[in-house]
């Protein structure tokens, strides 16, 4: 993917957290090394911790943490520095990878460019440990011989 890029790193590997844990992650923006004009294209940067559902139905979304930086806060010098994000996770909903619906937690870095375009970078983490529901297998009753 072309720059600018956002690189997100969690403080845990694998990125597994429990409800009420403190989620800490670092992110940094990789800009074009030589193209000053392109670098100036970022006019705002949003970071968020959110969950969303995926599956066959409508998509739900819940934003748990949100921060927006603009104007002086998105200058080149600041963007190139590693930034830290800290959030206390809630008790619910927990990550779930079902067949019909999935609940996915993620950290998102979203960049807004001067030309009106956006770039979004997501990094998924595990929140809680819910086992997937598996329906019990029913076996056909054997025929009794008289």
């Amino acid at each position, binding site marked *: 993917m072309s720059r600018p890029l956002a690189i997100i790193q969690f403080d845990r590997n694998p990125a597994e957290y429990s409800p009420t844990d403190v989620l800490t992650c670092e992110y940094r923006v990789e800009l074009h090394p030589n193209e000053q004009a392109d670098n100036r294209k970022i006019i705002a940067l949003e970071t968020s911790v959110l969950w969303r559902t995926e599956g066959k139905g409508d998509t739900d979304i819940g934003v748990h943490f949100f921060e927006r930086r603009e104007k002086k806060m998105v200058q080149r010098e600041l963007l190139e520095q590693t930034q830290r994000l800290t959030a206390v996770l809630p008790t619910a909903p927990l990550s779930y990878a079902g067949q019909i619906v999935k609940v996915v937690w993620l950290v998102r870095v979203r960049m807004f460019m001067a030309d009106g375009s956006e770039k979004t970078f*997501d990094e*998924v983490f595990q929140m809680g440990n819910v086992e997937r529901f598996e329906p019990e297998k029913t076996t056909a009753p054997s025929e009794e011989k008289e």
Partner: protein
Amino acid sequence: MIGSGSNPFSTRFVRPGTITWVEGNVDVDRLVAQFEANQFCGQIVGPHGCGKSTLAHEVARRVCQRFATTRFVSIRRIGLGLEVHSPGEPLSVFRNTLLVIDGFQYLPLVQRWLLKRSCLKSDLGIIVTTHRHQRWPKMVTELKPTLDIFQQVCERLQLDVERKLDSRSIATAFALCDGNCREALMALYDKYESKFDLVGTSGVVDTSVMTDLIV
């Protein structure tokens, strides 16, 4: 971008406006010209899952620069009532707005008439999708997706994923759903889940409902 554990046939990837229009048997440029000639008032008629909403989004994308704002409204019948979904701010300002109404046939007759009148007498543009002809200027009446178009849609959806469904599975889903793309994509969602076992659990996934699709 689709994540490693995501199913590329999830609603968030396949809903209208997210899927890009595949040029096939519909000349979109001609439709846009027709839409302009009809004072930015037009209807797209077709059965369930034929691509009406996706086409409406594509036409809207090509003409939206002529309007100050573009609003998408989705109307569904829930029991005896109607569910109106419109992302963004409340629908109150209509001036110089392009309105895309999905499920127009569910609106009461009076509201349909009022909308048409507003469109013809103001700077409001309206594209509606409907299952039946609504006495509006026609844009498309015979929207029929082909297997080739559906294969291209599925290829695009699976562009960023490592594990892909083969063309035979896609063709089977399309045939079983009788050309209804929405149903076929839902069937492929199930197929993808059962084939690749995305969660990586040791349990056996019940695939009996989709045995026809398993190659």
